């Protein structure tokens, strides 16, 4: 057997493959088959390679199971144990059914990830084309060291994705269908359940309390839909209903939301009026306090609907933004002097001031609307001013040093007196100036400025690609040093040959092309230099190794 550490989940004997009898093994990460009497597998597929499984129809004489791979190939197993063939096949199928999705996700994810990286990064894509498609290195080698880095930093790009909120109408999406015999069917998906839980935490709590010990999942949802809680006239929830408590909790939640008050003073209706009329004055009568009791049932159920819509919308909104709530709170707390103080005055003014300023702003009357800037929140302003503090901080000049230096220079300049006895003659000075002007003797190097005009842009582009590709290969090469494992030894030899291949297939043709176009400047010189350095290093390493071996 290949390796003992592998966990075998299922063994099915008497399975034929290509007319050979054998045994099928389902292991933790792969499915394998070995012919009878041999101790090795002739067929072995990691689950991640399998796209799907197919089974033969029940009526057929042969009981078969087919695996279709991502590559398009397929393998068919024939369960030949006459008495238990069907049972064996079912067992294998069930297990596969559980296993495949796990691996599928992983495989897809990897592929997707690679795809995404190539799409998002044109430089990488070009590199991929240069190195992999032209078969300088293999795809695995290419990805080996990229994905490694990627797997570590994986959460970063993913967490940037926006949290998906909840549709406001998720309850409406559960359309009851009549099943023909006086019943209703509700189709629930995991999404909807998730939405219900996120919007109504009380229901979730009930769910975890009751399912599965006192109710099955199905019973739970049946009761949910039967309960008045789901329906609009919530006021009538009976006591025997398990959801009556939820309704009460919702009520409490709403009350606490209301009591919390509003942060924005401009929408606070309670403090809108400056001076209310005293009781007994005015035309509009305050509603008598008895009005609640003599409301009709219809009126109070209408009021319940309204209340419920407000609550529902608030909860949906909160479910969508629950994640970012915490940092927001912290931010507001740092800006306020004292968040928890009893007197709301202490932290009200900032919000209030901002809102008032916003309200009186006429942006089009101002000459230029100032760029709205985001306030920089600095924990340590020092670090912002100087960047990361280096280990030998002495080397860096602090801003004070710089200011001192500038002051010094200013002073010197202020007291500067030309030493007239030691000046150059005017002819010498003018010749020096001529020599230093563009085109002068000392400014020969200035011709190089023209290189980007001399070389056509397609050549420039090609050169860029070559640099990128060479850089990539060299990175691989140099990353092997110091060579301390046999794996690295192999790799460094391989990389050397890769480099040589690169020079042969890419660099030399480019060089010839340049010569054909009579571009005199040696554009590839630096590239070659880099390669030579690498070869040199390789030689040194090799000779040393030889010496050690001998």
């Amino acid at each position, binding site marked *: 057997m290949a390796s003992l550490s592998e966990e075998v989940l299922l063994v099915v004997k008497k399975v034929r493959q290509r007319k050979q009898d054998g045994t099928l093994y389902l292991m933790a990460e792969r499915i394998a088959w070995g012919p009878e009497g041999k101790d090795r597998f002739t067929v072995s597929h990691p689950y991640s390679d399998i796209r799907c499984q197919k089974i033969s129809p029940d009526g057929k004489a042969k009981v078969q199971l087919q695996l279709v791979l991502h590559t398009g190939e397929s393998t068919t197993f024939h369960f030949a144990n006459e008495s238990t063939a069907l049972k064996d096949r079912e067992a294998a199928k069930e297990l596969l059914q559980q296993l495949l999705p796990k691996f599928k996700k992983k495989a897809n994810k990897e592929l997707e990830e690679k795809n995404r990286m190539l799409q998002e990064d044109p430089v990488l894509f070009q590199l991929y084309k240069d190195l992999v498609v032209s078969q300088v290195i293999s795809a695995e080698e290419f990805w080996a060291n990229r994905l490694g880095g990627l797997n570590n930093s994986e959460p970063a790009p993913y967490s940037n994705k926006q949290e998906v909120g909840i*549709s*406001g*109408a998720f*309850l*409406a999406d559960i359309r009851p269908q009549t099943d023909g015999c006086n019943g209703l069917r509700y189709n629930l998906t995991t999404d909807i359940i998730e939405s219900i839980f996120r919007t109504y935490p009380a229901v979730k709590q009930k769910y975890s309390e009751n399912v599965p010990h006192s109710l099955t999942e199905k019973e739970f949802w049946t009761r949910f839909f039967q309960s008045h809680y789901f329906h*609009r006239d919530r006021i009538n929830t009976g006591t025997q209903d398990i959801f009556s408590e939820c309704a009460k909790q919702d009520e409490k939640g709403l009350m606490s*939301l*209301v*009591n919390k*008050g*509003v*942060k*924005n*003073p*401009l*929408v606070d*209706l309670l*403090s*809108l*009026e*400056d*001076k*209310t*009329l*005293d*009781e*007994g*004055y*005015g*035309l*509009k*009568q305050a509603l*008598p306090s*008895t009005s609640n009791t*003599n409301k009709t049932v*219809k*009126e109070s*159920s*209408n*009021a319940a*609907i*309204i209340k419920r*819509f*407000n609550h529902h*919308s*608030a909860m949906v*909104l909160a479910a*969508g933004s629950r994640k970012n709530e915490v940092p927001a709170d912290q931010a507001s707390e740092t800006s306020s002097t004292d968040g928890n103080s*009893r007197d709301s*005055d202490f932290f009200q*003014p900032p919000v209030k001031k901002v809102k*008032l*300023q916003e*309200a*009186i702003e*006429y*942006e*089009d*009357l*101002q000459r230029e609307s100032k760029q709205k800037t985001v306030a920089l929140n600095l924990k340590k302003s020092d670090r912002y001013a100087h960047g990361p503090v280096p280990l030998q901080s002495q080397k860096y000049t602090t801003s004070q040093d710089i200011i001192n230096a500038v002051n010094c220079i200013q002073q010197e300049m202020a007291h500067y007196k030309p030493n007239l006895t030691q000046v150059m003659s005017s002819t010498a000075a003018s010749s020096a100036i001529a020599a230093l002007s563009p085109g002068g003797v000392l400014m020969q190097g200035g011709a190089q400025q023209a290189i980007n005009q001399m070389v056509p842009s397609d050549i420039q582009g090609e050169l860029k690609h070559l640099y990128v590709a060479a850089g990539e290969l060299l990175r691989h090469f140099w990353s092997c040093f110091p060579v301390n494992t046999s794996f690295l030894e192999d790799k460094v030899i391989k990389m050397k040959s890769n480099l040589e291949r690169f020079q042969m297939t890419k660099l030399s043709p480019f060089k010839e092309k340049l010569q054909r176009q009579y571009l005199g400047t040696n554009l590839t010189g630096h590239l070659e230099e880099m390669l030579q350095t690498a070869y040199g290093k390789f030689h040194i390493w090799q000779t040393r190794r030889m010496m050690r071996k001998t």
Partner: protein
Amino acid sequence: MKLNIEGLLVYFPYDYIYPEQYSYMLELKRTLDAKGHGVLEMPSGTGKTISLLSLIVAYQKAFPLDVTKLIYCSRTVPEIEKVVEELRKLMEFYAKETGEVNNFLALALSSRKNLCIHPEVSSLRFGKEVDGKCHSLTASYIRAQRHSNPDQPVCRFYEEFDAVGRQVPLPAGIYNLDDLKDFGRRKGWCPYYLARYSILHANIVVYSYHYLLDPKIADLVSKELAKKSVVVFDEAHNIDNVCIDSMSVNITRRTLDRCQGNVETLQHTIQKIKDTDAAKLREEYRRLVEGLKEANIARETDVYLANPVLPDEILQEAVPGSIRTAEHFLGFLRRFLEYLKSRLRVHHVVQESAPQFLKDIFEKVCIDRKPLRFCAERLQSLLRTLEIADIADFSAVTLIANFATLVSTYSLGFTIIIEPFDDRTPTIANPVLHFSCMDPSIAIKPVFQRFQSVVITSGTLSPLDIYPKILDFRPVTMASFTMTLARTCLCPLIVGRGNDQVALSSKFETREDFAVIRNYGNLLLEMSAIVPDGIVAFFTSYVYMENIVASWYEQGILENIQRNKLIFIETQDAAETSMALEKYQEACENGRGAILLSVARGKVSEGIDFVHHFGRAVIMFGVPYVYTQSRILKARLEYLRDQFQIRENDFLTFDAMRHAAQCVGRAIRGKTDYGLMIFADKRYARADKRGKLPRWIQEHISDGSLNLTVDETVQLSKHFLRQMAQPFRQEDQLGLSLLTLEQLQSEDMLKKIAQIAHQA
């Protein structure tokens, strides 16, 4: 920029100006020059406040002897604070341009609830509690008692203010409510009393309507404000209702019961005082014989704002002998109370005028008119003498006394209606005596008489001529300004039919009609699919909204709307609505979009702005007529017809349309803003309704959009929204709806500007 408004140098704290602002300032200047009153309608969001402030401040600086004070009245606390912030901006600009240190004192005044810094008192939730508690710590006799009893708690902030605060005037500057509190904390002075004291010498005072219009408060706070003041009522479209509210009284059985309790307490207190300190009562008696001469002298020298509850005539006389002693007065009150109780024991509705009431009371219990008129004054005097700590407890008896004075003073403009039960619940006895004011001019009259210029302004004052009529004054300027627009950023549409050609209307006959409700639902559903961010929908009344929401729920319309947007609904509970409002804004802010269902005449429609994405569309379901079956309203309509020759229907329509305009106007708060205004009722198409909308809305209603179906509305809205979503830069506006100083000075432009103001 610096402007030349007919020879007056006006500093305007912006680099550009809207043409209508310039025009507005011209009209305002003319009003001030003429020392008369003005009615000015200016579209919302065109910088009305800053124009007003710029001009009046400039006027004050140029003619410090002609205009000594600006009294700016607004409606809500946030509005007041906004005005002060704009003023601060203006003053900063002055300081920057002229380099002088600002010597203006401007401050906001609000109730104790918003200004108190006493740790215990300010933690109370309701304004009335704060007032009561404050009074129990600061009343003069409480403080007097402290001399003998050092344990008596007093407010240290008030003590500190009383000791030193009055000597040093508040240093010049701009004080918002929070600034006053800060200042108070620093000095240890009470900000409320400091502000009340400082408004006497402040150059600019910003406070709410009630401080001028409610006689009970005006008497305390605004009595001594200088005559040469300019008074501005901003957001004044509802001013008549504020006036009426402040003069109307409702008396229920509960009021009478509490009043009975008050009288008992007074009796006890009098008995106690009589045993211990009879001299005090004698002193009071002597004072009352002297009469109200003091008050009379003050009014003659014109130091005080007239108190409509305390009319001139009674100041000439002494308090009548029958109620001069405390016991007699209490007996008098008892009799009056018993009489009221007997009146409430009716089984059918009674409506009568004040003279009828007086005649009846004379016949039944022999109460004369004269002592009734002194009732309020006499009670005040008694409460002072008896050193009652908590005035709030005596609100019931104060109410009755005020009622007695009012009913005996005014024979015209008031009506008394006694209803044995609420119309909706005819089986439950709940008798109420409504003493309702029908003439808003009574409350505002002293203001017009006393101050040299009163300016009434708002975004929606159409039709302009009705306000001078119902408030009974003669303005020197009346103007309505249009909104100059570089792009038509408002889109009023009148939806008259559903897709099935059913006429849409909220009128009483079709109110319960399912076809109409369904079509209204469809309209909202379709709009929710095409309008980005926020939609606000207004219904004509709360009951109507409840019914519609319920039937939309049954028809599954709300579920479908939820697919597009979240739904929030105004409730009768203010705290709950505030929460819903905040969540609504949050949902608009994070891009999910939301719909707010709300009620015209409700708190949301009056006080909350839906700027930019908070309101891309406003839908007005139905015409928000007031509940016409109420007897009080009927009486008022009758009065309007008899006294002012305003037809009932005209007034009802005017009232409905001003509320509709208020609702839809909430969405447009500036020229960079844009919004749909959907009037979902076919009655809006009629000329008598449409003609009562403000001009700046009216002129954008095209003949083609008078009777649209839901589908057509959706098409037009889509087109409009797409156009509006294009980038809109300052350059697009420049020269058309936004002017630089040079552009403003060109001949052409001045000619154009002259057309903006539409004299009524």
